[in-house]
């Protein structure tokens, strides 16, 4: 069946077309008319504004002390404007001008604007608007009165606070609060409608901008039946820090409304209301997640130990992840470290400091295991998981195993050395390893991959351990002749030919640290020995790769190529000794003999000459910078810089050397009152005392000399740095092991000693014995790493 098109009468179509076309034309006509009317009005307003604007400016900036002409002009303007204001349109335009201007101007001009507005009775028009039946007109009238600060409108506007129309109500609330200081109170008292968050923010903004505003005690409105008033009052309490509402806050924590409760909890936290803790615990279960987190957050800052039970229960039982994690963090806030991380933690690694374990591992391996297990067990309940005790094999990984084996071997080897030492029945007072510029690699080598493994964590522990082991050795080695325990410093360095320095600074108690500093000073003197870090690694690095390299001691070598003048070495390394301390060990003994075995100076104070900060700066700067730094030394330097300047007097750079000497002189003059003694001693040290001559001889031992021309030799002696520079060949790393020789280094010195000491033969014999003994000891130590490698490799 075919569909037939309905027949439409053509005339009807034409009629409809005409109607719709007419409507369209009418619409566009009205739009055109309306637009023209609006634009005409706008242009009229603009032109009026152009007329009224300058008049307003004239009114605004009129000053009473103006000239007569200005005053007469002002009066004319006033009359003119009065005439203009008879027209409502002009009044509206003028009000608009003033409303616009009050936004753009501030200060005195703004106050004048408000005054003009009321003087011209423009506020009366605004009052009329309040009577309008159109809500937008009323709202506009309220806004106008508010913006122009017409305080007399307060009584009229406050009636609109509970207006059924939201726009009028909100406008009236803002007007009430801004027009008078007591407006906020009236508003909070009478507000019956909801106060939106935005409205609260606007009201707060208004309050903030009121000058000299004295806020009322907002706790009075915490009892309001309007929950929004309570909420706003809580926020105002918090904003104005009114902490006198503790009891009400505690009650409000129990409020059924979560928003009020949340705000009350915030206030509790803000004002540290401890009384609210129990209430918070009570309401916790019924609260929303956000409120629960807030309660936990508050408890984190206010909570005590007795709250931990409650919190642990929440942490254990809460199904919500956020609440649970917040509870855990709260517990950790109250009792730090209660909960430790459990996720992604390698539980095979013992938590306890491994240092203690290693120390006791040589004899008490089972204890190590127990300790770690107990630590693991202690952590297990905290993590809330029942973890099985770990077997020793589970967590003792390959690295730790190697370390324990290493310690066992190390102790065993040290014991062997000590045994040999005892068998030799020699007497040595010291094991003076501290000063040795010993280096070990700072990284462990993985036995499997051969890769370097960072071992920074154990560095400090290893250093401590190594120190203890050395102390054990030192304690074992005792001199039978020493009835009275010698001063530790003397004990360590007594065998060394000692250089005397009058100035005595603080005694370093830690020999290893002394050694470190000594080596650092060697570095400063451009001896390419070892980096300070490498030195520290000696005590912390892998024992398997322990290397005891021979320092580059060229220049300190005596006539015997394999012997080292330790006196010169230690002197230039920064060691300083008591001036009255004997120069050599033999001399010391002779002194003791002279004093019938009682030597008052038998405990010399071994000291550094003080580390000048400029030494470090000098290392990495050019000549000009050095010269500038030298000037600064004079300005800020003290006795520490004296020694440094002395070393600079041997600097390779002529300019630096010359300037250093000048600065040294000037600095000594500046320090003269304080350093008189030191300076005198320095002069004595460098010019008069025989042991200094000896020192200089030792520095350049290749020179032949005799007693008569000692002073001449001192003059011709090369600076220490030159000695280093001249010696070119460096031994291979494999040969970097000490070869020490403590034989007398100079025949003239022996002669001197012979002349001065009748017991010289005995003394020399003792010295030689000690030196041989020390040689043996050092050789054993140098072979130790090789033996150790052999042992650790199985």
């Amino acid at each position, binding site marked *: 069946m075919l569909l037939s098109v309905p027949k439409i009468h053509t005339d009807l179509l034409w009629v409809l077309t005409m109607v719709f076309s007419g409507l369209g034309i009418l619409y566009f006509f009205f739009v055109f008319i309306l637009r023209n009317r609006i634009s005409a009005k706008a242009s009229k307003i*603009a032109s009026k*504004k*152009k007329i009224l*604007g*300058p008049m*307003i*400016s*004239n009114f*605004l*900036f009129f000053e009473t002390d103006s000239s007569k002409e200005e005053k007469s002009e002002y009066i004319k303007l006033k009359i003119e404007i009065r005439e203009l204001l008879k027209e409502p349109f002009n009044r509206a335009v003028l009000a608009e*001008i003033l409303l*616009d*201007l009050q*936004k*753009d*101007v*501030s*200060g*005195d*001009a*703004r106050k004048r604007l408000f005054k003009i507005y009321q003087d011209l009775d423009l506020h009366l028009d605004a009052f009329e608007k309040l009577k309008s039946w159109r809500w937008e007109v009323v709202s506009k009238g309220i806004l106008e009165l508010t913006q122009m600060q017409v305080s007399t409108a307060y009584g009229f506007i406050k009636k609109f606070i509970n207006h059924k129309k939201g726009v009028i109500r909100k406008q009236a609330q803002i007007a009430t609060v801004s027009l008078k200081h007591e407006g906020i109170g009236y508003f909070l008292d009478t507000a019956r409608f909801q106060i939106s968050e935005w409205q609260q923010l606007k009201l707060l903004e208004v309050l903030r901008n009121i000058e000299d505003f004295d806020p009322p005690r907002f706790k009075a409105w915490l009892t309001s039946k309007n929950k929004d008033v309570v909420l706003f009052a809580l926020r105002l309490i918090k904003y104005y820090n009114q902490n006198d509402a503790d009891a009400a806050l505690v009650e409000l924590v129990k409020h059924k409304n979560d928003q009020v409760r949340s705000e009350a909890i915030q206030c509790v936290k803000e004002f540290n209301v401890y009384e609210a803790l129990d209430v918070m615990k009570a309401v916790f279960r019924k609260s929303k997640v956000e409120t629960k987190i807030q309660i936990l957050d508050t408890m984190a800052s206010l909570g005590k130990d007795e709250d931990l039970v409650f919190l642990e229960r929440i942490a254990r039982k809460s199904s919500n992840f956020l609440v649970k994690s917040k509870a855990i963090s709260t517990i950790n806030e109250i009792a730090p470290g209660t909960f430790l991380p459990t996720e992604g933690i390698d539980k095979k690694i013992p938590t306890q400091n491994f240092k203690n374990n290693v120390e006791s591992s040589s004899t008490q391996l089972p204890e190590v295991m127990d300790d770690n297990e107990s630590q693991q067990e202690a952590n297990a309940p905290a993590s809330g998981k029942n973890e099985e005790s770990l077997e020793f094999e589970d967590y003792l990984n390959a690295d730790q195993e190697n370390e324990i084996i290493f310690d066992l071997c190390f102790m065993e080897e040290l014991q062997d050395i000590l045994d040999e030492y005892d068998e030799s029945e020699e007497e040595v007072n010291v094991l003076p390893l501290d000063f040795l510029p010993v280096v070990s690699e700072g990284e462990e080598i993985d036995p499997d991959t051969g890769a370097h493994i960072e071992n920074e964590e154990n560095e400090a522990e290893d250093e401590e351990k190594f120190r203890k082991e050395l102390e054990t050795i030192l304690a074992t080695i005792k001199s039978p002749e020493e009835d009275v325990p010698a001063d530790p410093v003397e004990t360590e360095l007594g065998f060394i030919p000692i250089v005397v320095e009058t100035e005595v600074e603080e005694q370093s108690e830690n020999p290893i640290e002394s050694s470190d500093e000594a080596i650092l000073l060697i570095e400063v003197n451009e001896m390419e020995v070892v980096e300070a870090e490498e030195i520290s690694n000696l005590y912390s690095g892998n024992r398997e790769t322990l290397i005891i390299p021979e320092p580059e001691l060229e220049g300190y070598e005596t006539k015997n190529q394999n012997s080292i003048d330790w006196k010169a070495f230690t002197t230039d390394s920064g060691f300083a000794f008591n001036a009255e301390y004997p120069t050599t060990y033999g001399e010391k003994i002779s002194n003791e003999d002279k004093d019938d075995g009682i030597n008052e100076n038998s405990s010399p104070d071994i000291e550094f000459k003080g580390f000048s900060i400029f030494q470090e700066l000098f290392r990495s700067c050019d000549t000009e910078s050095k010269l500038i730094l030298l000037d600064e030394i004079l300005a800020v330097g003290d006795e520490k810089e004296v020694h440094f300047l002395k070393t600079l007097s041997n600097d390779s750079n002529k300019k630096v050397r010359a300037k250093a000497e000048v600065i040294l002189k000037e600095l000594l003059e500046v320090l003269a009152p304080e350093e008189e003694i030191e300076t005198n001693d320095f002069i004595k040290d460098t010019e008069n005392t025989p042991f200094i001559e000896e020192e200089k001889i030792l520095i350049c031992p290749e020179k032949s000399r005799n007693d008569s021309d000692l002073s001449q030799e001192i003059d011709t002696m090369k600076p220490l740095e030159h000695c280093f520079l001249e010696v070119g060949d460096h031994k291979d790393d494999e040969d970097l092991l000490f070869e020490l020789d403590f034989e007398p280094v100079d025949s003239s010195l022996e002669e001197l000693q012979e002349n001065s000491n009748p017991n010289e033969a005995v003394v020399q014999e003792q010295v030689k014995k000690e030196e041989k003994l020390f040689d043996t000891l050092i050789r054993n130590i140098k072979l130790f790493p090789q033996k150790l490698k052999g042992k650790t490799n199985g």
Partner: protein
Amino acid sequence: MVRKNLLLAEDDELLASLLDYRLQKGGYNVHVAHDGRDVKEYLKTATPDIIVSDIMMPYFSGIELIDHVRNDLNSKIPIIIISSAGNEENVLSAFELGANDFISKPVSPSELLVRVGRELNKP
């Protein structure tokens, strides 16, 4: 005493007339420009002793004005910027380009007068 020329670039006519009146009363010959094009045209024919300009203007903003004066005209005329509050980025840009001073809206005409005087009296 010679009155110094001041170019006031402000698109708000009311505010411009108010400031114009105050500045003239303060002893300056004020030329008011309501947009950037006016400013450019004026600068082609005259060199003011100081420019007071709003940052936000039609056709040619205050920032562009500073750039034009400093870079195109190579002039060191003191420039005081008027900016509405919360427009710190523009103010910083203005200072980077060479603005001498800044005053924020709402403007205190008396304060502006003091700032203008201070800029002109700088050595």
